[in-house]
């Protein structure tokens, strides 16, 4: 393969890449082959040494960020855009409410999950408060000279404290779960957009 054959093949294969990127990679490989031939390497050998075209093309495309590729694709097919806009505007009464409804449902689900976490923590706090109150009452009853009732409150204080600790753990686990779930939902939404764009 000659230098010009190689470069035109490269140009053909990189069609769809942003013009700037295409120009730069053509210049790079053209210069590389020129420098090799100046160094005394025969043209055919220099082209072969540069590497196989499939590997080069794959490498360049994988290095180009997705948004650049998408931008190039969208801006290069202007002819479709006119009717696409008309369709979008005409379909507005249909897709806008649906989109809003979906967004609101996702948001309410998320709020419901956090409400669950908040109520679990509230249970924990009230159990803790009861435990403290019962503990205080133990001494009050002792001072009033009713040791049996004092014992009863002592038991209640221990039970409430135990439950509070259990609820603290449950709340923590649930909060973590909701956090992870929220992240997963977000990633899922992002993926939908990436797939659409690709």
């Amino acid at each position, binding site marked *: 393969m000659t230098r010009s054959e190689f470069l035109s093949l490269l140009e053909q294969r990189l069609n769809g890449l942003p013009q700037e990127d295409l120009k730069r990679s053509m210049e790079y490989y053209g210069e590389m082959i020129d*420098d090799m031939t100046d160094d005394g390497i025969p043209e055919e050998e220099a082209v072969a040494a540069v590497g196989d075209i499939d590997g080069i093309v794959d490498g*360049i495309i994988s*290095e180009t960020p997705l948004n650049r590729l998408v931008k190039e694709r969208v801006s290069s097919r202007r002819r479709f855009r006119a009717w696409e806009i008309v369709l979008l505007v005409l379909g507005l009464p249909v897709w806008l409410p649906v989109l809003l409804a979906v967004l609101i449902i996702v948001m309410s689900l998320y709020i419901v999950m956090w409400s669950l976490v908040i109520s679990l923590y509230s249970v924990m706090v009230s159990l803790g408060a009861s435990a403290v109150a019962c503990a205080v009452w133990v001494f009050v009853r002792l001072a009033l000279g009713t040791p049996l009732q004092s014992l009863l409150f002592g038991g209640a204080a221990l039970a409430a404290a135990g439950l509070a600790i259990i609820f603290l753990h449950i709340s923590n686990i649930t909060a973590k779960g909701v956090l992870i779930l929220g992240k997963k939902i977000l990633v899922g939404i992002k993926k939908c957009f990436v797939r659409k764009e690709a």
Partner: protein
Amino acid sequence: MDIQLKRGLLEVCVLAAIKSEDSYGYQIIKDIRPYVTISESTLYPILRRLETADLLTVRTAEHNGRLRKYYHITELGKKRIEAFKDEWKEIVSIYDFITKEEKGNDQK
């Protein structure tokens, strides 16, 4: 070698190749090749990445009646080389630790 690791090492190699004076693609490859395998198609994305990260700048100059791109290291690029030297000390100590474990196991 691990691809990510080699990619990072090659970036520093390219910076080192243009550290003392500006150089061009083919010359960079010739300078690096005795030490590590690098192909023309590997160098291209590395140069682009280093340029985007402001570690080097590109200028075009005429040579033998055609244009050639020369790469010039920036202050940030020089700092990157220095940072690599520091990182390398850490890698060496990790290597010492790994081989020490192996030697210990061999003795058992």
